[in-house]
């Protein structure tokens, strides 16, 4: 039985520095507490991002993953994308051109009801398959 939470689109602030990131995280926290949080961060307004902002993104991602959810990024400016790449964070997030695309990507995936109680290898392969492959 899966409980599908709605996809929430949040607009990230213009500055993702220490103080702004803290405030934004406080705002985001209740949403991340829900079951399987599905959040799209619209970064179109982001002009400035520093390591505190990136740390905030990572803690959001960790929080969402704990509850079997995900965070996706949308409308990243080239500068923000470059910073994420420099800090090796870009590959941790799915990045979309627009918030709509990111939202659609959540909906397109018909969530297979694979709960965390199942071992990871049972999602696609049986244990026997793995053994035979090796």
């Amino acid at each position, binding site marked *: 039985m899966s409980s599908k939470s709605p996809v929430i689109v949040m607009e990230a602030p213009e500055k993702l520095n220490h103080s702004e990131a803290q405030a934004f995280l406080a705002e985001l926290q209740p949403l991340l507490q829900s079951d399987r949080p599905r959040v799209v961060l619209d970064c179109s307004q982001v002009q400035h991002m*520093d*390591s505190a902002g990136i740390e905030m993104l990572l803690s959001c991602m960790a929080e969402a993953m704990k509850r079997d959810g995900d965070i996706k990024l949308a409308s990243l400016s*080239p500068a923000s*994308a*470059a*910073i994420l*790449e*420099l*800090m090796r964070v870009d590959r941790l997030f799915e990045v979309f051109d627009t918030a709509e695309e990111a939202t659609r990507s959540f909906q397109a995936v018909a969530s297979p009801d694979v709960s965390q109680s199942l071992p990871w290898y049972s999602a696609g392969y049986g244990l026997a398959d793995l053994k035979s492959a090796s």
Partner: protein
Amino acid sequence: MGLGAIVVMGEAQDGERAGVFPGDASVLSQPFACFDVLGRSTAQRIIERFVRADVDVVTVLQTAVRQDMKAPFTAFENVEFRVMRDAGEGVLQKLRHYSRNGIEHSFLILGNVYAETDLLDFYYFHREARQAATRAVDREGVLDLWVLDCEKAQTQAIDLQHLREAKSSDSSYFIREYVNRLSDPRDLRRFASDLLRGRCATRPPGREVKRGIWIDDGAEVHRRARIVAPAYIGRGSKVMEDTLVTRLSNVEKDCCVNYGTVIEDSSILQNTDIGICLDVCHAVANGNKLLKLDRNVVIEITDPSVMRSNGDTWKQGKDRKWGRNLLPFRRKHERQPTTDLQPATSAPKQRGLQAANLLQG
């Protein structure tokens, strides 16, 4: 019969590069020609070529005063450095001065052009053409390099503006050798990769410790750093443990690449410190500014633990050990033994792959 040369550096190049990268036009604090690329600036290379061609006197005309602009040229004899407000006026004055002092012909080059042509052949071509000015061209078009007849240039009132606007003609001198226009940060990057690939006549300085890997004097490369050829590590630079320098990258003098960072297809310009565990790919890094060539964007890093310029501290020698003011755990890594790189023939310590010097040819 004397031969002179005038090298103009400054505003023309600045204007051309503005707007190439949105965000900050002043990302490079000085003209491209003044940045070291594999140990020497393009301006130095240009002047060396003139000196080698037995040019009697070289004048460097700088149109805007910038710090340390004169320093690279003081090593040369017969090289005069002048700061002028108007480059055109400066060129005319210089031609007049040359003419009065028995110098009949002069090269004129704008500092943004690097051309590996036979300068004497160019001069003889010009003399036979019997014209006031002969412009160099290559397969991409006209270049900001001329030979001028000092006397005729004055009588015909040829000025810099006029010269630049003129198109190529039959009497232009065609250059088949390597040319780089240095009009864009990409050209700076291309110049470094061309030098490393051996597409230019000049070779990188320093010791070639392994085929395609040049390490300049005083550079320190940790035995657990991996350098993939071709690559260049500049004078006095430090490459810390678990770093990777690969795909035609160059780390210029007095830089520090810190623990776990990857430098790929990038140029780290002089006096730049790069922090821990970063990916610097397809970029030119200068102090706290990063030009991402693939994304066409300049980013300014405000956090000094990520990227910073070490220009002042390095000169003073106070902060030679990088990271003293930065993240505290860096100190731990600094205590790890960093060794002056040994020639490739020296055997790595037998502690398995981790301890080997992973320089790869």
